[in-house]
């Protein structure tokens, strides 16, 4: 499964000590997937990385919001369930969680697990396991943000909403969450950036995302510098793009009356 097992990489390196030998033409040569050249091969990998990040983000946002809200509710049971969720997903390494979703869960799920292992194409098996893992892992972090976001609004807004005759569910959906999300945009942005970086962990189960593709391109072309430099730059570019979009979203949704609100 893993491609970077080369024991002779020292000799591989000595050919590349001079940076002047940076060979751009390698990107136009056929890739491990021979229909594509190496540049397109990496770009497709970037696409798979982004797809995994977006899929996981949907899971993380929904689950994280629910768990975060649970932790702010009155009573004992729901807040402690939320707290247990956060502790569980924060205190197990991401790699271990990924292996649990990829190896263990399909084995112990009756019927659905067999269907998953026999009928689903490998790339989608990896994608689904990766989405479940990264989504639920990131959800624990988003839950903490949502909880502190709602907490930062104080009890006044909740009280005002209830006094107006709204139900608690309505106060959360119409008053607290819309304001909390707007305040949280910067921290949610950095969670999304973390999520993009974490997608590289999915390379360990053979998901052909950017990092994994750069490794296999390095292996087949013996051009390690070129492959890793390109992948690193692509990650950096995606980072910048997300930050730029988030900045725009932040300006668009800015709330007057909050720090950073009026500009």
């Amino acid at each position: 499964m893993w491609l970077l097992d080369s024991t002779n990489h020292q000799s591989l390196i000595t050919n590349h000590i001079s940076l002047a030998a940076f060979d751009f033409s390698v990107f136009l040569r056929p890739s491990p997937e021979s229909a594509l050249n190496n540049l397109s091969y990496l770009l497709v990998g970037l696409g798979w990385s982004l797809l995994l990040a977006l899929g996981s983000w949907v899971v993380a946002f929904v689950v994280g919001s629910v768990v975060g809200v649970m932790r702010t509710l009155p009573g004992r049971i729901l807040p402690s369930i939320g707290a247990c969720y956060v502790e569980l997903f924060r205190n197990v390494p991401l790699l271990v969680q990924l292996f649990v979703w990829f190896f263990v869960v399909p084995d112990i799920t009756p019927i659905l697990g067999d269907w998953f292992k026999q009928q689903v194409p490998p790339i989608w098996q990896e994608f689904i396991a990766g989405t479940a893992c990264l989504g639920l892992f990131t959800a624990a972090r988003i839950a903490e943000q949502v909880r502190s976001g709602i907490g930062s609004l104080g009890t006044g807004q909740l009280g005002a909403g209830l006094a107006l005759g709204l139900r608690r569910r309505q106060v959360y959906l119409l008053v607290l969450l819309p304001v909390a999300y707007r305040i949280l945009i910067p921290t949610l942005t950095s969670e999304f950036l973390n999520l993009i970086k974490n997608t590289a962990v999915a390379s360990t189960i053979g998901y052909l995302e950017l990092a994994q593709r750069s490794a296999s391109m390095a292996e087949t072309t013996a051009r390690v510098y070129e492959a890793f430099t390109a992948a690193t730059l692509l990650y950096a570019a995606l980072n910048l793009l997300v930050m730029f979009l988030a900045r725009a979203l932040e300006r668009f949704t800015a709330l007057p009356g909050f720090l950073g609100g009026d500009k």
Partner: protein
Amino acid sequence: MAFDWSSIPGSLPILWQGMIVTLQIALVGALVGILLGTLLALLRLSPSRLLSWLSAAYVTVFRSIPLVMVLFWFHLILIPLVVGLLFPGKRLELGFITALTAFSLFEASYYAEIIRAGILSVTKGQFNAGLALGMNRRQVMRLVILPQALRRMIPLLLTQAIILFQDSTLVYVINLDDFFRKAYNVGNTVGTLNEMILFAGAVYLVICTLASGCVRQLHRKLTVPAREIA
């Protein structure tokens, strides 16, 4: 599918060897990371434009790349290159050195941001008071600012160390036998992969839950109550 836990007691000695590797990476990564991170934070806040920019660039570069990618760079390029220049012709076992170096330098960028924020959280009046007492910049930093900043930062630094302890599992991608990799290998050979993955997860869960509980206690103890200051 039924679980078969019987292979775990016998494999504990092997797993313990892996745990030692994991602990070494986490410990060295945290210590070197904090030292280097402090240096980076001080450079970042220094009056020199160039040093400040260099420190910012270091932090930004490391923080915008996935850890897996960083490990690739160190595994296949940087460490073989440096070792090749220092000890030409020798074949050394580089996995462990690679992990120590990569984690130390990578974590330094995360520690730098924590420490910078900690220093900035000390009020400007403290700095000026130190200068007014006749200390120079370095003395004020060392005797006035850093002790206060450190007190505030300790919980965050320890939390980051717990994250580092968990992230060290990623040495999987450079084929280093840490705790998790050992568990995975045993599971693969014995045919109890599921049990081994779950067992390893449980071990991490227990250690990290206990550790973060301790950090929370410490945080409560270290917080200086407001009236004590006033």
